[in-house]
């Protein structure tokens, strides 16, 4: 048993990247980076009134249940000068009014039942609303993240053995009425963002 353990440890010191994420962690990181990218000028043009000065950060707020944890923090911390000279800050709160001056607010699934009141708090304000819960886009959230899963049978070329493989993609939905409302509030969603391959483009449900 001892030699088994020492061999495991020995192979462990082999310098390798940490590629041990499982699929759930990988999709979480993809979503976190998508949320972070939404505040970049490539996708959203902010009116100057949303910044105190030229060095003020872009603020991403997380309301309620936070599905990203440190994934969002590390995405925010990584500076991408080519995309934006501003730093990105992340704040978390359970009270929507406290996040009213964020540039983007991610609304957690915990807010499902009171989404209407939450969105009211951001009405008319230059805030991008983003969620990842079914139905949020139809109810007024600007962008909703979703998952699309397909199961594929893959046949190993040499052994001929078939394996079932799940492929997961993160999808986006957009509410076009909210785009118009944001325009009225001074925030312009770029054509680059509008031309993304959205899974669904919806309008407010009546």
């Amino acid at each position: 048993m001892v030699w088994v353990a020492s061999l495991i440890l020995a192979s462990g010191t082999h310098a390798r990247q940490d590629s041990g994420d499982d699929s759930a962690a990988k999709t979480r990181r993809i979503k976190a980076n998508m949320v972070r990218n939404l505040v970049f000028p490539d996708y959203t043009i902010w009116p100057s009134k949303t910044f105190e000065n030229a060095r003020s950060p872009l603020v991403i707020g997380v309301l309620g249940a936070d599905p990203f944890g440190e994934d969002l923090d590390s995405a925010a911390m990584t500076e991408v000068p080519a995309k934006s000279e501003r730093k990105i800050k992340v704040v978390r709160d359970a009270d929507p009014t406290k996040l009213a001056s964020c540039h983007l607010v991610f609304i957690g699934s915990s807010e499902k039942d009171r989404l209407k009141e939450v969105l009211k708090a951001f009405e008319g304000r230059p805030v991008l609303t983003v969620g990842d819960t079914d139905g949020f886009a139809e109810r007024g959230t600007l962008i909703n993240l979703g998952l699309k899963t397909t199961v594929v049978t893959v046949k190993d070329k040499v052994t001929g053995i078939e394996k079932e493989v799940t492929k997961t993609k993160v999808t986006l939905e957009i509410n076009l009425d909210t785009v118009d409302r944001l325009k009225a509030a001074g925030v312009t969603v770029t054509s680059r963002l509008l031309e993304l391959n959205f899974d669904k483009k919806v309008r407010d449900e009546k």
Partner: protein
Amino acid sequence: MSSVLMLAYVALLATFQDQNPPPPPPKPPQDLTEMSLEDLMKLEVTSVAKREQPFIEAPAAITVIRGEDIHRTGVTSIAEALRMVPGVFVGHLDSSKWAIGVRGFNDLFSNKLLVLIDGRSVYNPLFSGVYWDVQDTLLEDVDRIEVIRGPGSTLWGANAVNGVVNVTTKKAQDTQGGLVTVLGGNQEQLTAGARYGGKVGDDLYYRAYVKYENHASFTGGNDAWSISRAGFRTDWTPDRDNAVTVQGDLYDGEEHNRLRLASLTPPFTSQFEAPTYVHGGNLLGRYEHNFGSDCQFRAQTYWDRTGRLYDILDETRDTLDLDLQLRFPIFWSQRITIGAGYRWTTNDTSGSFSASLNPAHRSDDVASTFIQDEIPLVENVLTLTLGSKFEYNNYTRFEDEPGARLSWRPHERHALWASASRAVRTPSQFEEDVTANVQVLPPNPPSPFPTVVRFMGDHAFKAEELRAYELGYRTRPVDPLILDAALFFNDYHRLRTSEQGTPFVEGGPPPTNAVAPLTAANLMEGHTYGAELAATWQVAEGVRLYGAYTFLRMHLHTTDDSTDTSSPVTQEHASPSNIVYLRGSWDPVKDVTFDLMGRYVDFIPAWKVRHYVEMDARLAWMITRNLEAAIVGQNLLHTSHFETTDSQIGNPATQVQRGGYLSLTWRF
């Protein structure tokens, strides 16, 4: 200068480019923070939804016999299906008995092969072997038979020394509806089976079957036999992450046997002819839970009863087994599998002059645990698997069986693997407790008494040990051709011998006799080596060729203190050096299939069995979508031939004879 080198490198690369370039070198984990929204949206995260059993992906010498192969070759038993696997010797001893071994050591009481049916071990610890006549089910419901040559000890523990045969039946959801099959011929006189599968709601599937088979004697023998069998299986999947299986079987049969036994009265041998009654049953439950994130749990428990009554040595055995397994990933993409198991087995025996056990009633238990770590050294290219099984049994106390395997995938179409492992075969009840009067020698003047040659078990008998080293290569150079090769070197220690003791005269009731005692000991060792090749070639649409070649050499010798002069020679030369198996499958017209199977088995010196070539053929016609008729010919080239010699307990080998049968299968 550097640009010249660059050009040379590119040119070199270009010459090795083919239609299927090697997989790109593993990328460093993508830096998501640098990607645009468009690129992030294109990313696909892959995860293996369902993990196969570990050994399928394990780098080892594995051959999978699919249900379709069983169906198209027309074999009528699991034992016979094993003929198509390289590295396996299959000898039909008489109508109901088989001598089967992997990489040598293949007699009726072949003791180095573990056989499992749906996770239930059918290995009998009485003599450390398998009674093939009762290991059966409705063959149409067999999903696959996996044969692993080489020690499967890490996962299956002791006694999976030379190999493992793992039979898996189809899930209940894959055997829905009714099936009736009937076949009749001169050898397989009648086999009739019926199965019905249905479902309850959307998650619970079940099936039940009955089967009756009746086989004729071989030429010159008295070995006709018949067995009735019934069983069921239910599979319940309440949701995507949970599965529960309950299954069971019952069988009852009668076999005719003729045995040549030793006797104390002249002429000192007697012919024993009496039926053997076999019966048994099992009940198995299995629960699998998927935690997500590649983490799975499995619990299995079963009860098995097997009985064989034939007046020489009756045995009824009950076994209870519990097995738990957990698989989960850890840092650096490693996958750990851990397991724990407990097995309790008890039997009742009653003996005779020829063989008896002392104690006649015995219980044994084994507790085991194993751990396996799959370490991707280079993701998808180089994987190291380390593991060990630890057992505590009441025969030899503690055994550990470590193993290491390395698999290398340098190219999409080539896979290499290597392994080193240790395996043990724990003593059987026979080797510890038996008293077997195997032969009686007539009085030899000046001795006035006949001499009984008596083999006796010894509690000091130790486990046999194997250290195995293997190398393998699999390739699919072009899509229609698959080649699979394995080389092995097996180093054995403490193999069983029969040591001669000092003869003595036995007092007691007349007739008085002398005894020449033989005691079981572990004084033989040696090595075996060989190669196994298998090739599959899809020649054209509807034409497929398969070939398997086995090469084996054995070198065994006793250690200095041994007085056994026969074991090395008999074991060493008790396997054929070469076996060839060829099969051609052809679909000549729509709804008609034809299969031709040929085999060559080299001569077996110790058994004085000549080499032979034989052929089977099957022609089938789908009369309607639900009705298939087939005509099968077996052992067509000769009227009859021997495949083995008499067994150690006196079953005379009978000749396998030319046979054929007609079958009808109706599905509804």
